């Protein structure tokens, strides 16, 4: 069931195309429908009967020759949510552990970003302009770069205005809209800008506070009471986008004790992208304060009862993840080097 492209048999890379092909074939169609029921029961947390489990296992085995098995999604694709739903329909039968989501649904990050910004040209524009002045605040300087890119300016205003709306008059903000626009910002704006805005190397607390406030914590995750981290994970797993970003983060920021860069994938760029992908989901991470580069989820493991270990595991994914720490540090050193190169 492979699609013919220019005479060569090519696997449809994204799951929407793969689903189309599968639905055209009666056998594959039937298998896929069976799997859809399996994943539906799972999301409703219904205990699968022995018979149902057998049916799901057989459906999984039948998929080995289908393009659905290896299909992936792109971070910046249209209908990303639909693509992810297909992916998890197929892969939800494979995930054993409640927490370990195994492989990321997203295409390899390396060939994801189509545009490359000549950042040095922009840097010259900013340092040459009398406007920027000699600001020592790297996070402020990053906004100066952002202001030169139409998409960065527009989408930064887009998320900031909706994340702060309602909050100024003491009311509550629309967190769902805020999350959506934060995700849009980190998906659509070239990474050269988003990375510099989020991972600017601060030497003082004023800069650190600006960095901490970049994703509007009061609306994007903070609440009056810190939830238990298990609750955060629960709501994340139920949402295809959050679940996918978490799988991506687990895969690309997986720590590895023996590895020199601390990461099992040895790909800091992929880890950085996966971390930014978490922003605007139920598990939005952020700097813990304005004087350290430590990042964490906004949750606690108090009162976790017999799930204390799982809870600690969730929390430590961010707060004590050597791979993530090294990744953030290396990005900050890179930014620092670029800033010094311009002075």
């Amino acid at each position, binding site marked *: 069931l492979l699609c013919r492209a220019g005479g060569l048999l090519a696997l449809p890379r994204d799951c929407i195309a793969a689903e189309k092909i599968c639905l055209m074939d009666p056998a594959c169609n039937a298998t896929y429908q069976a799997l859809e029921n399996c994943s539906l029961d799972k999301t409703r947390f219904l205990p699968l009967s022995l018979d149902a489990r057998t049916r799901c296992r057989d459906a999984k085995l039948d998929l080995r020759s289908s393009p659905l098995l290896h299909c992936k999604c792109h971070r910046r694709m249209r209908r990303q949510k639909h693509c992810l739903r297909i992916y998890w329909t197929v892969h939800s039968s494979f995930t054993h552990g409640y927490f370990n989501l195994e492989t990321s649904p997203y295409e390899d990050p390396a060939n994801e970003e189509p545009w490359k910004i000549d950042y040095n040209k922009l840097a010259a524009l900013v340092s040459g302009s009398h406007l920027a002045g000699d*600001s020592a*605040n790297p996070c402020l300087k990053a906004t*100066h770069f952002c202001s030169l890119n139409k998409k960065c*300016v527009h989408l930064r*205003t887009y998320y*900031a205005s909706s*994340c*702060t709306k309602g909050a100024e008059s003491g009311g509550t903000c629309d967190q769902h809209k805020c999350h959506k626009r934060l995700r849009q910002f980190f998906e659509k704006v070239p990474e050269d800008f988003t990375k510099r805005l989020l991972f600017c190397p601060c030497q003082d607390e004023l800069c650190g506070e600006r960095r901490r406030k970049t994703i509007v914590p009061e609306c994007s995750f903070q609440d009056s009471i810190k939830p238990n981290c298990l609750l955060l994970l629960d709501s994340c797993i139920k949402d295809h986008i959050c679940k996918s970003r978490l799988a991506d983060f687990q895969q690309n920021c997986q720590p590895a004790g023996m590895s020199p860069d601390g990461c099992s994938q040895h790909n800091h760029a992929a880890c950085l992208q996966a971390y930014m992908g978490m922003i605007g989901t139920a598990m939005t991470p952020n700097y813990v304060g304005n004087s350290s580069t430590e990042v964490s989820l906004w949750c606690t493991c108090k009162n976790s009862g017999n799930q204390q270990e799982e809870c600690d595991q969730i929390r430590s994914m961010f707060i004590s993840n050597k791979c993530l720490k090294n990744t953030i540090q290396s990005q900050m050193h890179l930014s620092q080097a670029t800033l010094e190169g311009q002075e």
Partner: protein
Amino acid sequence: ARRRDSPNCTVRRLMVKVRDLGLGFDSDEIVPFKYCSGSCHRIRSNYDLTLATLLQEKAIKPGPLGHVASHPCCRPTRYEAVSFMNVHNTWQTVEKLSAAECKCIG
């Protein structure tokens, strides 16, 4: 091609310090300010032509701040907001700050 001397009404872009907007915001950020500029002389009615003649003949005096317009004016038909953090690291959004689209109006 547009005549060099009076380009038509269009959006223009200027990088401005927030502090220089004159709206009282205290921020070191820079924002793009987009404004409308250019001529609307191409689409003048009988009214405009008559008014231009009478102004030229000084039969009508334009008043202190040029409050008599003998042609449609180049104005925004759509605006954009701009958000930034001020010196206290508080987010602020200025609604209807920048022109997103310009047309000859009136």
